[in-house]
């Protein structure tokens, strides 16, 4: 794979369950190496189906899926040997202890970092001798995270990784574990995370795609998104004057105050507002979650 080639390259992916239940339709996705890529969407948007296609747990019915430049179907083993996966519903063999589970999963790998295993077990305060059957949902997710990170893969696929984790562990996981994973080999370790808890990943996401009804609604770099999606708050001395607000995604009026959300076209709108000499005028970038909500609202309209 050349350095410019994306780690994940999905082109025109379509997958339909049973009769007519189209989960993904014509999806295009490119994830560059070393990036943390977010796949955002509501429940049933097609995020899990997309990730399963990357793992060859589902076979694309149309389009192509390439991971590390390899065909995810034909070169299944080669692809999987370079990635780690945390599923949305974590399940282990109940008769195995945590340690036995790690030993079992390590048996499939060429490389397994024992130091990381010990360090994360201690950080999550997990007892390695406990049976996986008696672990809570959150603890099972922690075990799955450790198992995904210990082989030090080039690509980490996380499907709703923080669901079931308590706030402290969730923060620990996002800030420390994911951060440490990427810092281990900067510029080469890639993360593809599917979630609807967008706020949690706000600082980590480099680029994202918002999905709805199996289609891509919006794909942007996080910084570009924050530049484009702006919230403008204006307070006028008198009543709100007549303004051309067609460029605004959302308009909210409260007495002499006006709150606008814009997707691009912010400077022109600001210039128009300033002509009316407002009492105060502030602009701020939208959070990724607000962008997500607004993008889907526009989609719904």
């Amino acid at each position, binding site marked *: 794979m050349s350095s410019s080639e994306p780690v994940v390259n999905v082109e025109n992916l379509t997958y339909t369950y049973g009769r007519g239940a189209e989960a993904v339709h014509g999806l295009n996705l490119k994830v560059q190496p070393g990036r943390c890529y977010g796949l955002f969407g509501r429940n049933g948007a097609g995020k899990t189906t997309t990730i399963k296609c990357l793992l060859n747990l589902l*076979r694309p019915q149309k389009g192509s899926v390439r991971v590390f430049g390899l065909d995810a179907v034909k070169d299944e083993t080669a692809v999987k040997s370079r990635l780690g996966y945390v*599923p949305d519903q974590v399940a282990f063999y109940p008769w195995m202890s945590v340690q036995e589970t790690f030993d079992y999963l390590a048996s*499939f790998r060429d490389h397994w970092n024992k130091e990381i295993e010990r360090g994360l077990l201690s950080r999550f305060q997990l007892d390695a001798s406990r049976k996986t059957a008696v672990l809570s949902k959150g603890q099972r997710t922690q075990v799955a995270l450790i198992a995904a990170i210990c082989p030090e893969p080039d690509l980490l696929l996380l499907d709703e990784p923080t669901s079931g984790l308590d706030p402290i562990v969730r923060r620990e996981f996002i800030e420390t574990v994911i951060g440490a994973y990427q810092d281990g080999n900067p510029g080469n370790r890639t993360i593809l995370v599917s979630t609807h808890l967008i706020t949690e990943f706000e600082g980590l996401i480099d680029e994202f795609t918002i999905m709805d009804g199996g289609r891509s609604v919006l794909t942007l770099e996080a910084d570009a998104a924050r530049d484009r999606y702006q919230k403008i708050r204006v307070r006028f001395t008198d009543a709100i004057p007549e303004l051309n607000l067609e460029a605004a995604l959302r308009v909210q009026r409260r007495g002499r105050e006006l709150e606008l959300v814009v997707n691009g076209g912010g400077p022109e709108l600001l210039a128009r507002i300033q002509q009316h000499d407002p009492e105060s005028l502030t602009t701020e970038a939208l959070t990724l979650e607000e962008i997500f909500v607004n993008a889907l609202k526009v989609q719904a309209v």
Partner: protein
Amino acid sequence: MSVSVVRLEKEVRPLMGVWAALILIGFVLIAIPKGVLGFSWDALLLGRLAGFWIGLPLVATLSMGHEFHYGTAPLLLAQPMDRRQIWREKWIALLPMVAFVAFLYLLTGRGLGFPVDAYHLDGKAGVLGVVWLIIATASAPFWTLVGRSVLNGLVLNLIQGFVLFQIWQWAEFAAGYLLRPEAFLVVIFAGIAYASIMLWFGYRKFVRFEVDTGSMSADVLIPGFKGADRFSGIFLSRPNQPLLNLVRKELRLLWVVWLLTAISVVGVICLAALQFAPGYSLDRVGILVAGFVASISLLSSILAGSLSMGEERSTTTRSWHQTLPISAARQWIVKLGVVLAGAFIAAALPVAVATLVIGKGLAVPYGLGFPNQNLLFILLFSSILSFTGFWCGCLVKGTIRAALLTLPVLVLIFAGIRVILNLIYVLHFMANLLDSLVLRFHPFPFSGEPGYLGPARNWLIALPLHFADFQSYRLFQTDAHERLVHVLRSLFRVVGAAIVSAAVVTLPSAIQSRAAQLSFYGVMQVDEAVRRMPNLIPAEGGIQLTLQDLSIPDLSPSSRVILRDAVVSVERDRRVRRGVVTSVRFRNGLSCSFARGWSCKPEPGK
């Protein structure tokens, strides 16, 4: 430990439970003589049959099916390993286990449940059994991947077995060389060829397998028979009918039982048609039908019980139902009622159809048949199996576990009863201990022949099951037991109840039986004393005597107690030359006479 050993251990572990149970049955049958085990021997033979025809295919199904059962299919298939390697490792673990059990079972008897005499199979039954086992084992991965659960895979595999059996029968008939050696060879060749094809299908299915459901474990319902949806209108909930909706839900949960019942009815009709084919006697067809119906009824009854709670435990809808504003008692009664009714219908309907199409030719298979098509017997048989399955479903999590636990639980309960029956039999030989009980609590007056419990003792099981009935209500309200110690604790309570109830019922019977013996000895001693004094007996009429008059020197202490205040009447027996009739009227009014035989009757008016 090398990585391949770690992976192999993981493949072996989920099969171990069922495999160990099958091995245990085989070893017990080899190691312990029939006389020691009594009724449990028959249960073990039945267990061996079920083990060979259902247990071994289950082991083969578990190899792939446990990944669905535990929801680990995505975990396994997401690993960087060629699926062909995973497939190979599964077979490396499975094959020796199946082969070992098959070998052990063939050692313990080659019939394997085939009606050898009716088929003139002689030594060929074992070979046919092995061919069937090869087919069932080779097909197991394919059917499991199609059914996406252990239970679906097993049921599909067993249906396949039945269909192949039908094809074999009709092909023999059509070819016109019934039971000739060449037919036997063709069957073996065709069987192995079919197994190879199914193995190839299974391999292809696995290599291309898509995990299109979540990792949720499901035994039957979630990925299921799509045909069920066509009938779903019957099971649709209606507003304002909470109780009926519970019933509908229960009926839907038993979907597999209804399917098996339908298959059983169709199967009976297909098999019955053989009676018109040349070479097939009515007796032979009767044995076939009875064996078929008995095995499907056994499976249906166990499933009816275990599905109801097992599915709800697996899908966690049980705890959800606990939050509904409807009492637990009502939910429990609805569940149990539908289970028992469902099991009865599943057992009785095929029998009714079989009786209709076969008539008197319907045979009694393995001692578990249908004596006089007795509906009460079928009701009791299906109720015991389904209720035990239901109890197991309340105790553990999941249909498979509950179904697997059902027969061992029944064997343990019967064994508990058997232990007490044997103990009481031993008590007869410890006369002093039993006599002290008899002389203290002897159950006079009694009339007629004081009997032991006889065949009725088998129905002693009703008592511990009644106890289990109450226990199941308590278990129904709690979460399933995951730890072995909890399961054993509940199990021991039921087995303990079996032991206590057997003792409570049989001890009075033993005391009564011993009391009758002692009375007999007492009257016999009196009679011998009378005969030693022929001058005492008048030529005409009779004479009344007391024990003091007879002055019996060696009267046993127990006879002294029993005969205290008794009045002895002696008269000539005119039907026999120099014959004497000795009658003893006990103080409680019971009158026993000893002439050519022994009889007792209570005093008129008492």
